[in-house]
């Protein structure tokens, strides 16, 4: 709605402030409950009325997952390993392909790009059965490679990087050519150093998606040594008994922390990137 130029506070302002505040409280409450419960003595974690801000600070709840029979450190390390491998892999493959589709001319370029882009329409559950059979024949069931390998490429990432490389001024590349730089050097020494924001955007989106992913680990991994954090925490709820929400919430809080940290540091990028991805249509 138009921002009106007239000053003073209208009834509409009061209503909208109140609605926004109520909505913000409703959105924040489950996460506040998670945090305050994670710090409560386990005997009081079901206590009603609920407390929204922590009044007690049982930090030892945060140690409990590490002492339990659930290999929490291992789960964390597994998730981190898969997430970093996929993110780094995508940064490499997507920036290479994005650069080629944006700045290099070769026969079939437009067709190959559109074909790749069309694959965005294919839902993951359509391809999962053959991928499972493939991984099985390669002996990669219950192996992190089964999740990492299909994650190494991304049509969305190629699209994102291509858009970015396309916007770079041609003069930069002309100047490099005059200085005798080949295509590979132009890419490595001119395009890539300037692509920081795009790489950060792709990196953050991929990191978040893989860190949170559940479908593939559920299908491919079947031992506690190989489970990822979301799998572990989903199992933890039943495993540690529903009677111990404090410890479960401490584990969930720790699992969400990397996401929160990334969000605080890179909020502007995330919001811009997702908005742009959304607007592009």
């Amino acid at each position, binding site marked *: *709605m138009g921002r009106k130029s007239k000053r003073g506070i209208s009834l509409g302002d009061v209503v909208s402030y109140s609605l926004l505040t109520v909505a913000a409280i409703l959105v924040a409450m489950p996460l506040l409950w998670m945090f305050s419960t994670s710090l409560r003595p386990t005997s009081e974690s079901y206590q009603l009325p609920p407390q929204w801000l922590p009044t007690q600070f049982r930090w030892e709840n945060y140690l409990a997952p590490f002492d339990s029979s659930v290999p929490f450190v291992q789960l964390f390390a597994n998730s981190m390993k898969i997430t970093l491998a996929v993110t780094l892999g995508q940064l490499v493959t997507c920036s290479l392909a994005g650069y080629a589709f944006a700045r290099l001319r070769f026969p079939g370029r437009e067709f190959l790009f559109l074909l790749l882009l069309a694959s965005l329409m294919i839902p993951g*559950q*359509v391809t999962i059965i053959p991928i499972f059979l493939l991984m099985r024949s390669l002996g990669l069931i219950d192996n992190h490679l089964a999740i990492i390998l299909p994650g190494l490429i991304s049509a969305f990432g190629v699209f994102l990087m291509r858009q970015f490389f396309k916007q770079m001024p041609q003069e930069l590349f002309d100047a490099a050519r005059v200085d005798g*730089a080949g295509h590979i050097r132009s890419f490595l020494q001119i395009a890539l150093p300037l692509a920081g924001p795009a790489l950060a955007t792709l990196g953050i989106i991929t990191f978040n998606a893989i860190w949170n992913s559940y479908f593939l680990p559920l299908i491919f991994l079947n031992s506690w040594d190989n489970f990822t954090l979301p799998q572990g925490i989903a199992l933890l709820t039943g495993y540690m008994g529903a009677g111990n929400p404090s410890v479960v919430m401490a584990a969930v809080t720790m699992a969400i922390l990397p996401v929160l940290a990334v969000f605080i540091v890179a909020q502007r990028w995330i919001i811009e990137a997702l908005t742009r991805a959304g607007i592009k249509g």
Partner: protein
Amino acid sequence: MQNSTAFKGGILPEMTPKRREAVVGYLFILPTYIGFVIFILYPLIESVRISFLEFSILRDSTYIGLENYARMLGDSRLRIVYMNTIIFTLFAVFFNAGVGLLLAVLLNRRLPTLMRNLYRSVFFFPVLVAHTYIAVIWRFLYQQDTGVINYYLSFLGIEAIPWLSNVHWAMAAIIIMDVWKNTGFAMLVFLAGLQSIPNEYYEAAQLDGANERQLFFRITIPLLSPTIFFILVIFMIGALQVFDTIIVLTAGGPGDATRSVVLYIWELAFRNFDMGYAAAVSMTLFAIILVLTALQFVISRRWVHYE
């Protein structure tokens, strides 16, 4: 100059510059295309083939023509999971888009920038958190006797709701949680759309004596319609594939009350190893999503021309 460039490129120095550019281009897209062929193109074709087979990793496969497709017609569980998915999709899309639009409109009013950014961050943050973790938290909140939600509802005189154990409430529980998590994304995109509407339109209309209601329905909504349409389609495609949200919260239960199509496909393929039939079911979902995407493509193109 030509020669030195060629040598620095390092590959076949005698190639023409044009040729060299093409070779580098193909080399650069090679990793992506290898992955694309192995993990998207081949599985897609293979999936179509499997859908014509009686296929299980436990036995040899046999060609059975359209039998898997015919079997779907008589599969009462498939009807149930499709109904569930459609109900979830309708409600989730409506509320995600509706609440998102409302929040965006409110945030786009005269507000201190700091406040707008703070509220926007709060609304958006759940989008980044895994469905799995969200569901673990909400499972506690939804507890019938000890849950926080029923505790507050009791003040309104509402008796303890069996959120996760009742066939009707379980679906409502999933939709509420989904909207809580995902409406922030709709809000973000709508807000960007609203901010791209030039202020002059509103000023001109106000000079002509338009009231706020008229401004909203005559300017905001028409100019925002491509964004609204985009959000509806994106959320619809996402909701039709719902899996993570459900599996941790209710695992499809009670009974089949919240089982979605993808949960059913997963169960068929990886619990019952009835992979031929699972592949056939996945084709129906694929077809629906293709139609929606094509629709989105055609209509959004028309809109771009209109503006």
